[in-house]
């Protein structure tokens, strides 16, 4: 299953109720597996074929490699209205232009910085990218690891939008799954007094997600099926 991204995505949608599938191309990072664009394109095509939900196509964070690979990935999904990213203040031109040409949506990224978030949105919109096709991403801090910063920045962004700042009025995405599971509290198997590890991890992720949802975040990238169930349950009760 793990070797077949298409089947994996299908399982996430059909069994675990994913509304979107996020392909995070960590493997293309030169310091990780350094996979090439052809591989990323192949994975994208497989997943596109396997599921009908919208895709998020997320680069590895290495500007040079992303600029090389993501245009090919974008082209492979042309017209599929994927959410593609991320673009930053210092690296936005090529991916913004390509996302525009291929009819995708764009993730603009800022390092928990409200001013830079606005700046990237202005830069992208200055290139003619429609504001209503932008989703913002502030680097996510998990429970115990900076969640208060993530919470307050998302809250500030939402309040700015509600008071009429159109450059801040986009949906926001958070990367809760991978950030939560980086916490030792979520992962450590043998930790007397911390409770059962099999509950603790999903709870750590669900708590982080629920907290950020309340700050006004719209899209949450998640990992553990039990955390997804808990968060969906919360969403259905509150909204």
């Amino acid at each position, binding site marked *: 299953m793990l070797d077949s991204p298409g089947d994996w995505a299908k399982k996430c949608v059909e069994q675990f109720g994913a509304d979107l599938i996020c392909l995070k191309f960590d493997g293309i990072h030169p310091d990780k597996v350094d996979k090439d664009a052809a591989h990323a394109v192949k994975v994208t095509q497989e997943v596109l074929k396997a599921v009908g939900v919208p895709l998020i196509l997320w680069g590895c964070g290495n500007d040079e490699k992303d600029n090389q690979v993501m245009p090919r990935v974008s082209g492979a999904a042309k017209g599929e209205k994927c959410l593609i990213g991320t673009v930053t203040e210092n690296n936005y031109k090529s991916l913004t232009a390509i996302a525009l040409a291929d009819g995708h949506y764009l993730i603009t990224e800022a390092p928990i910085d*409200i*001013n*830079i*978030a*606005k*700046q990237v949105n*202005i830069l992208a919109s200055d290139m003619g990218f429609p504001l209503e096709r932008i989703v913002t991403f502030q680097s996510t801090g998990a429970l115990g690891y900076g969640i208060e910063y993530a919470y307050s920045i998302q809250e500030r962004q939402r309040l700015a939008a509600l008071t009429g700042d159109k*450059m801040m009025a986009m949906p926001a995405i958070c990367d809760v799954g991978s950030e939560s599971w980086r916490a030792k509290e979520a992962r450590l198997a043998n930790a007397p007094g911390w409770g059962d590890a099999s509950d603790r991890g999903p709870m750590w992720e669900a708590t982080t997600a629920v907290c950020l949802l309340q700050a006004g975040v719209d899209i949450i990238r998640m990992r553990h099926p039990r955390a997804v169930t808990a968060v969906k349950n919360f969403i259905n009760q509150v909204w």
Partner: protein
Amino acid sequence: MILIGERINGMFTNVKQAIATKDKKLIQDLAAKQTKAGAAYLDVNVGTAAADQEGAMKWLVESIQETCSTPLSLDSQKPAVIAAGLKVINAGNGVILNSTPLNKKSDEEIMDKYMEMASQAGPKASIIVLTMDKNGVPQDVDTRVAIAAEIVSKAMEKGFDTRRLFIDPIILPVKVPGAQVQPGNILAAIDQIRLLAEPAPHMAIGLSNLSQGTTERSLINRVFLAMAISRGLDSAIVDVFDRDLMNAVATAEMLMNKQIYSDSFLKVY
């Protein structure tokens, strides 16, 4: 900041001529360019020259809406001229009825008429009411605020949402003898008028009037506008083509924490 573009006004020679010769293109160009420059509303004033003001208003509204969906501010002191515009307008995105005094000798009920027309025009229709009554334009702060209080209570009595109410404290040309005290009075009046209702009514001014006849029009306009924004002014009828003015608005709003700072904050308008 709700900026209302002032350029479609029969007081300007080219607009006056366009009305006379039915030159749609000029009007539509002004509408498009003002929208691009950051106008949230376009003021539409037939001026005094048109013989048939109602017909001219109708023609202007129809011509603009053929090519532009920016909401309009129908600018006339005559209810019949406003009504003529409202007959043909698409008010789905909003419309401002600009403007009426609290009352006047010849028509005690004029503000009620404007509220009535706005109510009929739809939920997004607003009115601008001048702090002026049958005794004329007040010169001091207290009378301005007293008239504003009457305006607000009249609106509340009729169930007219104060968020659809713009109060204009009437700015006079600074160059008129004895008027130099007025800009300061206006600022003091804004402070007090905003406290009259919760939610507060909008505050609007016809900015360009301030600098009539002066040598440094743009500078005077933008400095005063920045000062007024710092006191809570949230709307003005302005020349949106004045780049320096627009930059001053963006900067004042950013400094007042109304807009989040970014390196390109000037591109907001």
